[in-house]
């Protein structure tokens, strides 16, 4: 606490009182009002029964694990078996998010490397601009555009058939190609910039030194660039993974009829089901599983939480 006070005093000294007060307020509002409070409200909801408004605060309004039990075991009528459907969807969602993350990583690494170490001046700025501008188009519009692009009479099918690559329209939407493409595209910037930042700060001489000492190009990347860029890879992957797992619009619009995204179940509970406590519990489960998974991956790849902030 005294450390905090000393820090604050030092900060006031350096930046003046108004700036310090503004920053203090902004951080407090950010942390409490926008981050902590809503999450706590959700957490609170998730431990309650779904009661009509008239009974809220009444004797039946007690804490319960019912909503979580439902996620794991399903309705009581089911007979106490695992709730295979919802758990399955959760797993599928996680797997898909991992896949999207890997796709983005595979696409972004070479681009970020080129941007950082080959593209000079105007060419580099142009590349960055080309990456950013498409994101001025809003997410829904982009998702629908992808749907048209990949549709039975979409540009890709028409072109493929015109070139004779395939004869009948391929159902890209049904096969989830459109979904993966759309999601990969949606969060690509969140992968590219951390990667670019990390790689850009790597001393070019290190790459040349490795080459000079006999390393092949692949070895240079594997042994020098990637270990160096690991914090950037971790932070980009974490963001893409989290946002993909939590995406709603793209799965809704681009997902095949058989493919359910876990967020869609959450949405259904909140909206169609009108069951906010259950929706909250599902959302909390998603959050917890995602955080757990990210932590596990960071353990496996030996990245510290602090490194991600860089």
């Amino acid at each position, binding site marked *: 606490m005294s450390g905090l006070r000393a820090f604050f005093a030092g900060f006031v000294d350096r930046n003046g009182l108004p700036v310090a007060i503004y920053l203090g307020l902004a951080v407090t509002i950010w942390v409490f009002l926008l981050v902590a409070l809503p999450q706590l409200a959700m957490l609170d909801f998730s431990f309650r029964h779904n009661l009509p408004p008239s009974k809220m605060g009444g004797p039946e309004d007690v804490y319960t694990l019912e909503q979580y039990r439902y996620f794991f075991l399903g309705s009581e009528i089911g007979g106490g078996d695992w709730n295979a459907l919802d758990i399955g969807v959760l797993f599928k969602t996680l797997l898909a998010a991992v896949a999207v993350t890997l796709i983005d990583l595979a696409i972004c690494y070479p681009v970020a490397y080129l941007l950082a170490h080959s593209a000079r001046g105007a060419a580099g700025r142009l590349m960055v601009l080309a990456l950013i501008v498409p994101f001025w188009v809003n997410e829904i519009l982009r998702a629908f555009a992808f749907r048209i692009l990949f549709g039975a009479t979409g540009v890709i099918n028409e072109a493929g058939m015109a070139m004779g690559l395939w004869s009948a329209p391929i159902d890209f939407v049904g096969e989830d190609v459109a979904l993966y493409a759309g999601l990969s595209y949606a969060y690509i910037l969140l992968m590219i910039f951390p990667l670019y930042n990390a790689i850009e700060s790597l001393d070019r001489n290190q790459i040349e030194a490795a080459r*000079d*000492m*006999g*390393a092949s190009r692949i070895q240079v990347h594997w042994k020098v660039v990637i270990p160096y860029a690991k914090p950037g890879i971790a932070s980009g992957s974490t963001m893409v993974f989290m946002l993909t797992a939590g995406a709603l619009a793209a799965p809704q619009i681009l997902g095949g009829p058989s493919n359910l995204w876990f967020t869609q179940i959450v949405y259904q509970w909140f909206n169609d089901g009108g069951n906010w406590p259950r929706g909250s519990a599902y959302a909390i489960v998603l959050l917890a599983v995602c955080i757990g998974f990210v932590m596990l991956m960071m353990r496996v790849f030996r990245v510290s939480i602090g490194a991600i902030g860089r």
Partner: protein
Amino acid sequence: MTKDITLDYVSVQFGDYVAVDGAHLTIQGGEFFSFLGPSGCGKTTLLRCISGFQEPTAGQIRIGGKDMRGIGPNKRPTALIFQNLALFPLMSVADNIAFPLEVRGVDRKTRRRRADELLELIALSGQGDKRISELSGGQKQRVAIARALAVEPDILLLDEPLSALDLKLRQHMRRELRAIQKQVGLTFIYITHDQGEALTMSDRVAVMSRGRIEQVGDARAVYDQPRTAFVASFVGENNALTGRVLGRENGLSTLDLGLPAPVRVATASGPGAKLAPGAECMAFVRPEALRPCAPDAPNAFPATVIREEFEGAQRHLVLETPGPGPAAGPAAGPAAPRELRMTLVNDDRDAAFGPGAAISVGFAPDMACALPPGELASA
């Protein structure tokens, strides 16, 4: 081990800018060879050509008689030590040194053994598990050398490797580098803008200016028999006097340097011998070659002491003498005063004069040289 490196009219052009201009020389296997020149003269570019990071736009580089065109840096018998060392900060000292072996698929045990041997060579035994950031500047330097030696190159290329160190350490590392070179018997190609480094360590030095190689020779030749005005003014301190050749006989040229009387300078060989009577020229007299003398001694001329810089063992006197300065041609007229520097040993009892004194100074004809006029090194 004894692979010669031949640069055959190597040029490098970046757009319109010529960074290296027709470098033509042979470096013998086992030699400690330095490229010396001011910053921006193309030294690094030339070194990058030898190491394979840069393809010459013209000319050919041969190592051991083999044309290096199209051969990548990882396939050449060279190892480059970068100006900033480029050690891998995420690897331990031993892993850094063993990196060249690792990428060649050498097994862990052999790698470790070789790293230990090299650590011993650079006097860092037992420090293999340290992180790079835990080493001092001089130790990092030595690790970079060990890592380069692990490649088992025939030629070690060093790009101003000592420039980041402080003066004391730099002088210590000079001796150490030279000792390591003797011990491993490799060819060292060394780049520096520091003439002290180049002169003390090298078997031979190539002096460069604006992408051109001005002169190649051992330290003495470059210092005592400069072949261009640039070399004369860049290597060591020198007084430059512009003037005109009056005549030449018996290897001695008589020059009009705007002094009260003509002076005689030895031009037995070198470019000075080709200066015909009437030609414009530059004469160079080293501060230590300039001596106080009697007014009627040969090559004597009057001067006024303006300033004294006392340096312990030596003292430097800044003198003023009338005549055209080094930059202005003879056309600038004879009256402009110019400054000359004279260095005296501190126990010079005959020269007990200070600022303001009007004295006579002179030099022996063979302690000066006459060269065609040319660009001087900027101070």
